[in-house]
């Protein structure tokens, strides 16, 4: 009996962590999906996330208001996105390299600001878990099994999942979505039909970066409520890979995010439960999985044709 009970607790714990940990992947992955659909590969996501994580954390640390943290993270994301857009779109820099530059800048600056402005690791009171109190003595959290899995998350987590259908709607049902896809698939044709490719690409890169900033904040003011140097640990790069894995579609990104967060959760629980897997090997799993996911042959057909190709308005 007790054996079964612990087993159920573990499964619930893994599923709960899986949903929780999907939050940063979803924000960053969906943002990056917009960039890539418009033809721009932003590899600097990890750097933007770190900046968002720091500024979000710092704002909450100073004001105690979690929403101001979100605002700060989005704002710094926009600034970083603008920098990336100028370099990659206007100056047509090689996107594989400019993104690495942005990553190093974000990593260095967020660590520098953390060291000079805070110095030591401190916690903040960020977003707390919603329990959905319906009546005085009943909340959705009290529903057995389902409650602890689905109704014990912060508002940022629900927002991340809500963003999936919103992204699908924007991409597939709005004119702007059509313009994004055209800019990434055939910028010359889009241009000839009156779409301003440069503007569309600027907007998507800035939107993607704002979401990456939010992804960082979701770590520092919702999931963990602390800031550490390089706390993303390459999450931003995995988010870029998720877009490939998800065939450049919102629901594909969702599937990828859930897969990765569940593997992450399994890995954490394996350590908690003292399973006979060396933790150093367990930590490796998500990265190994990324490579395997990227190697899946059926994914590539959906790649936007003009991905990483700069666009210049010709005279002809």
């Amino acid at each position, binding site marked *: 009996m007790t054996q079964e009970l612990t087993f159920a607790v573990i499964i619930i714990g893994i599923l709960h962590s899986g949903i929780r940990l999907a939050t940063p992947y979803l924000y960053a992955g969906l943002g990056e999906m917009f960039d890539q659909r418009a033809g721009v590969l932003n590899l600097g996501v990890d750097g933007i996330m770190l900046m968002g994580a720091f500024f979000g954390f710092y704002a909450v640390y100073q004001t105690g208001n979690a929403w101001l943290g979100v605002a700060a993270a989005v704002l710094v994301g926009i600034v970083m996105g603008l920098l990336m857009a100028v370099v990659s779109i206007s100056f047509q820099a090689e996107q594989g390299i400019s993104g690495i530059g942005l990553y190093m800048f974000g990593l260095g600056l967020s660590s520098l600001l953390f060291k*000079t402005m805070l110095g030591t690791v401190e916690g903040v009171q960020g977003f707390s878990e919603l329990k959905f109190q319906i009546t005085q003595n009943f909340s959705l959290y009290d529903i057995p099994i389902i409650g602890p899995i689905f109704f014990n998350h912060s508002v940022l987590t629900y927002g991340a999942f809500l963003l999936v259908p919103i992204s699908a709607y924007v991409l597939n049902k709005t004119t702007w979505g059509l313009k994004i896809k055209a800019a990434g698939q055939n910028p010359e044709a889009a241009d000839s039909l009156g779409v301003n490719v440069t503007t569309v690409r600027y907007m998507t890169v800035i939107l993607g970066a704002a979401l990456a900033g939010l992804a960082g904040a979701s770590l520092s003011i919702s999931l963990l409520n602390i800031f550490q140097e390089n706390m993303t640990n390459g999450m931003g790069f995995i988010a870029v890979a998720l877009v490939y894995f998800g065939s450049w579609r919102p629901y594909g990104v969702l599937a990828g995010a859930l897969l990765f967060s569940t593997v992450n959760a399994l890995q954490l629980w394996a350590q908690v439960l003292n399973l006979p897997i060396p933790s150093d090997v367990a930590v490796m799993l998500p990265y190994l999985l990324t490579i395997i996911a990227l190697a899946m042959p059926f994914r590539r057909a959906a790649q936007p044709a003009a991905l990483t190709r700069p666009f210049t308005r010709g005279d002809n």
Partner: protein
Amino acid sequence: MSKTKFNRFFYDHLLNLLLPLLAVLAALLVGALILWVQGVDPWEAYKAMFLGAFGSKNGLADTLVKSVPLMLVGLGIAIAFRGGVINIGAEGQLITGALFVTFLGVTFGEKAPGAVGILLLLFAGALMGGLWGAIPGWLKAQLGVNEILSTIMMNAIAIQIGYYLLRGPMIDPAELAAGTNIPHSARLPKNLDMARFTDMAKALGFTKRAKELGIEGYAGQLYGVLVEPTRLHIGFLFAILMAILVYIFLWRTTIGYKIRAVGLNRQAARYAGINVKRNMVLSMTLSGAFAGLAGAVEILGLHHRMFEPTSVSAGYGFTGIVAALFGGLHPLGIIPSSILFGGLLVGGDKMQRAMQIPQVLITAILGLIVLFVVSTDFFKRKLQTRRISEEAETFFEKETGAGEEASA
């Protein structure tokens, strides 16, 4: 020099030098702004940095020591970029190379005679790094896996393998005995230490210190770097030799030509009958081999044991990219460029000690340099195209002018 000739010289050669310098200056300016906002006098900070890196015997020696892995990694990056593949995985390739060299050295080192043993281990490091680079190369060529992402993941995997080995099978028995369990390996046998500059100087008969010879000022410091005991080892000369070899390889051999052809235009290379896939794998393998070599040299010349993977790689995989870009992806340009960035790393360390400015400022500045250097490419292309079209215009004006005279 005629105006056209000067124009050609300026736009085709001088510009390649000036624009990266401008990029570095711009990045340092932004860095100064960050310092100023933090309430630090940027001038004082940069002075401490520059003097720390180049002002004294020990600073200069450290700068050169740090330039060695940067040079080797940078050479590998240049081969990959010239071959049209982007290798962000030098960190992992360096780590696996260092791990393999340490394992072999600790296990079989006692029996190996010094010089031959060192050469064999250098080769082993290159082999391991090459293998670590070949995997993403093969995945790209055969399965179309984006090599930027796969190399970044390979970095993370290499770091974890390193921690696993150093906490388990490869841990220093002394650590186990003492119960401290710090993840580092045993020391390699002394016969596998690469010679230091001071050893070489002694062998050549330079035994006196600068003071004893009465050499004063900066010349004395320079003399000290070469002769007096510092950490500078012959890996520095080895790296320069490698730079020359890579130059010959890329510009004077058929294989090098093919690699560059694939990098310049994949389609054209394919039409010319070059096996594009094989050359992509080859450039990734060579790129990884140089990073692995950097790992081997760090172990044999400097650390003599393996410890925390990220401390051994120390970001050289990324800084090496910056050094390669600043050196114009040219093997000979990478030599001075690596020394400059080695100096930036050492100077950052000195600045941290002297003025309590966290060293991570250097990472931010390096990132900005990358952003600015890749941005200047755009202006360079624009200026060079304008130069060519202007020249063509004047040429045609002359031609048509001459034609009119003849017909009249």
